[in-house]
């Protein structure tokens, strides 16, 4: 196992090191009141130290757990490091979690102190305060609306820093004591507990040491040659391991600058202003960008649209080859260069990706068309396969070896193998030390000799030696006739269409595949506007027969493409419907990272699933919904079901089988 430098084996030690080495380089930026504010590494150290001493004055000590709740704001990142400097353990939680979910995690983690973004989160903590007897203090970043609250146990970030600064100024021993305490931290210490969003059941607290994340981050930095000149934008949930490693540990190990957006909905503009060089995003982010572009293009003038279509076709043909430095004829290069001038360049600029060197997609499989689109316009998009339990990195694609249907080779320091049942297992220095207070679950996942069960079914591609993930092993089912039914595979194909936001395929143990569709309100709404389709709500638009016609066309195309694939041809979609409401994490239909909770959805929409298989053309359904403020209500709807005509199976192998 690779070892870790004992001098720089914790994040607070790295911060002090960075303040010495990169003192005047930017470490963090935040757009505030419309202007980018910058902090150098030396300034970050100053902020963190003041807050850390303040925390220690409030009584936070080694081994205590404290939570971080909020968006990507510099102070919340500093708070993590400030607590770690005292030997306390941060437990970031998803800020959009409803109070109930939050109560479970915070009680389970036994947090004693919370650092939160604003009034909304303070209110949430107040409503669950009776279930969190240990939670003694709450510190907030944004004072707005909190003036009239009882401040006995509620402090502002500045106040805590002021306490720290005063202490540092008045007590000359204080600085030495603080640094000595910080030096006591070791690489093997527990550094953070990250609760996984959990596609099934209660969230589990993944315990990672400093060594876990620091070694993983160093390996990743080396793999992609990242250094202090990178610019990244932090916009993913703080509670997600991806953001923790990417916006915090990798930044501290490489010394690069992390930029915090002005607000959650300004990320696109902010990214454009910064020009990030390295990006890490779930496919959904790339998907949304593309949908937005396609919608805008549909509204553009005829000439622009023709130009766009033409050059996107050029990019599809030559772009990837040029990116991978393959041989491309001169006229191909010429057309691509013109396209770059007229379309790809401006497009990348719009996306804020002009300066990007490497973009990763992870978290979920990405649609091949989507992947090719971005690579075609010259974005070095690569795939990565990771888990919280691995401190992210399990496999990644090296430059120049990019395939849209694989997730790459084992990352540096990681061993990967496939079990007899087809499950992917790995072992690495990043492997977690266990689930917090859950030895049983830990034993299920982590073998005594250090291998981790991923729960994903996969295999190594015979041609290029890279790992391919099919689906969660427990989700891969079979139709009644024995045909392999991989729901996520079908759903990903459907989701490539900008009009389809979400899709749920059902069919395990049934006669054929049925699909439940969520339309994309932006894309279909814009289509409706152009075609004079009047609608008052999502529900009304979703039920419109013309929308059904449009979706039927997409499904027909998916069926045709599936009919050409040996394994999947038998699982073509026979019937589909458009759901009357959008799938929503508040109703437990998606996880907080926007992954489908298929089992729950199939239960919830039981009557609709049954209607697929009993031949009815309309189904009645009543569902309970939770509004953003926590109120509950019900929605009743009649949902129409459409029949599709599957294509005859056209592959040689299937003919043999038939």
């Amino acid at each position, binding site marked *: 196992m690779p070892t870790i430098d004992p001098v720089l084996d914790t994040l607070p030690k790295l911060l002090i090191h960075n303040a010495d080495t990169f003192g005047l380089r930017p470490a963090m930026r935040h757009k505030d*009141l419309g202007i980018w504010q910058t902090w150098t590494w030396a300034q970050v150290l100053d902020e963190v130290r003041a807050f850390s001493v303040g925390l220690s004055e409030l009584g936070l000590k080694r081994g205590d757990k404290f939570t971080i709740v909020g968006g990507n704001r510099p102070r919340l990142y500093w708070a993590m490091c400030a607590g770690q400097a005292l030997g306390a353990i941060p437990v970031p939680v998803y800020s959009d979690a409803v109070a109930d979910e939050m109560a479970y995690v915070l009680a389970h983690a036994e947090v004693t102190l919370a650092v939160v973004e604003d009034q909304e989160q303070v209110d949430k903590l*107040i409503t669950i305060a009776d279930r969190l007897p240990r939670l003694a203090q709450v510190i907030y970043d944004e004072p707005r*609306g909190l003036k009239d*609250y009882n401040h*006995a146990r509620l402090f502002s970030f500045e106040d805590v820093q002021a306490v720290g600064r005063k202490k540092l100024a008045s007590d000359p021993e204080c600085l030495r004591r603080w640094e000595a305490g910080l030096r006591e931290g070791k690489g093997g210490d527990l550094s953070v507990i990250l609760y996984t969003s959990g596609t099934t059941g209660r969230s589990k607290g993944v315990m990672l040491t400093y060594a876990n994340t620091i070694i993983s981050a160093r390996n990743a930095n080396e793999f992609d040659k990242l250094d202090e000149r990178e610019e990244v934008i932090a916009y993913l949930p703080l509670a997600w391991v991806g953001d923790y490693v990417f916006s915090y540990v990798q930044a501290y190990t490489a010394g690069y600058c992390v930029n915090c957006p002005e*607000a959650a*909905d300004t990320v696109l*503009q902010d990214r454009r202003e910064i020009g990030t060089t390295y990006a890490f995003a779930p496919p959904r982010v790339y998907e949304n960008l593309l949908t937005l572009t396609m919608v805008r293009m549909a509204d553009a003038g005829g000439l622009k649209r023709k130009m766009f279509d033409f050059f996107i076709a050029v990019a599809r043909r030559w772009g990837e080859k040029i990116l991978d430095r393959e041989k491309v004829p001169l006229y191909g290069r010429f057309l691509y260069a013109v396209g770059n001038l007229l379309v790809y360049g401006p497009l990348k600029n719009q996306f804020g990706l002009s300066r990007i060197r490497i973009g990763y997609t992870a978290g979920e499989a990405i649609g091949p068309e989507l992947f090719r689109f971005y690579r075609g316009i010259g974005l070095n998009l690569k795939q990565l396969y990771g888990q919280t339990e691995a401190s992210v990195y399990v496999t990644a694609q090296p430059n120049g070896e990019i395939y849209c249907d694989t997730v790459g080779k084992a990352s540096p320091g990681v061993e990967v193998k496939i079990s007899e049942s087809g499950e992917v297992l790995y072992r690495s220095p990043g492997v977690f030390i266990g689930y917090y207070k859950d030895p049983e679950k830990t034993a299920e996942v982590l073998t005594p000799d250090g291998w981790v069960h991923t729960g994903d079914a996969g295999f190594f591609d015979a041609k290029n030696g890279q790992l391919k993930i099919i689906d969660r092993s427990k989700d891969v089912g079979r139709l009644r006739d024995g045909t392999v039914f991989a729901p996520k595979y079908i759903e990903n194909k459907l989701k490539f269409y900008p009009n389809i936001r979400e899709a749920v395929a059902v069919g395990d143990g049934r006669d054929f595949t049925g699909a439940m569709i969520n339309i994309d309100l932006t894309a279909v709404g814009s289509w409706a506007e152009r075609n004079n389709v009047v609608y008052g709500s999502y529900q009304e638009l979703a039920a419109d027969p013309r929308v059904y016609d449009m979706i039927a066309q997409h499904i027909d195309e998916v069926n045709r493409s599936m009919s050409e694939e040996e394994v999947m041809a038998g699982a073509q979609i026979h019937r589909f419907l458009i759901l009357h409401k959008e799938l929503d994490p508040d109703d437990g239909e998606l996880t907080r990272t926007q992954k489908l909770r298929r089992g729950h959805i199939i239960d919830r929409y039981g009557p609709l699933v049954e209607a697929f298989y009993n031949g009815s053309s309309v189904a009645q359904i009543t569902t309970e919904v939770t*509004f953003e*403020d926590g109120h509950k209500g019900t929605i009743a709807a009649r949902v129409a079901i459409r029949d599709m005509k599957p294509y005859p199976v056209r592959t040689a192998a299937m003919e043999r089988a038939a």
Partner: protein
Amino acid sequence: MRAPSSNETALGEVLLAVEEVSLSFGGVRALTGVSFDIRKGEIRAIIGPNGAGKTSMLNVVNGFYQPQSGRITFKGEVRTSMRPYAAAHGGIARTFQNLALFRGMTTLDNILAGRALKMHRGFFWQLLRYGPALNEEVEHRHRVEEIIEFLEIAAIRKIPVGRLPYGLQKRVELGRALAMEPDLLLLDEPMAGMNLEEKEDMSRFIIDVNQQYGTTIALIEHDMGVVMDLSDRVVVLDYGRKIADGTPDEVKRDKDVIRAYLGESK
């Protein structure tokens, strides 16, 4: 760590008093002998059925209409007639029932327009783009940015307001009124045409404006639920007359109010 409920704010001195105001257009009597007051720091609602004279009342307060009789006292000064620009100079800002934004201008420019009264340097200084005019503009921009952050509209800062959905346009209009740093903010149906979520957002902004900036607010609203939750005191008008005045609870129980809203059983 308990959140304070609204309605608890102590009521201050009288900011604006309306005494026996009557207004008619030819033979149509819009207002007949209406009196009420607005105290510093409160959220005051004016409600009533359609055609009750609510908007007329608001237009009298900000000087758009001249009442035929009656007296209006604002910040201790009695006035009989006033023009809207004078009202604006005096610290009264308003939003409109049917939006009155500069549709081709961005959110930022629309809100900056609300600062026009506070720009002191003349045209030629501004041409210079140096020195006092520049400093002044930087300061105004800073104030506007605070409002943008306050109303959570950073994402639409540079978008022409004509392209924004209705709910956001309403928010921009509120922003422009706030940019004037008014003593009295008049809101004409701030929630008209909004869905539940937008209404909740808007309610939160109105409460925040009142609490954070201490701005006195008078609002006209149809949605009874919203009015009862938001306001400290309510005036009810019907056919141009005041029929009730008091806290939301008092007003809700008032017989005349129930009759005006629900009709009378015979």
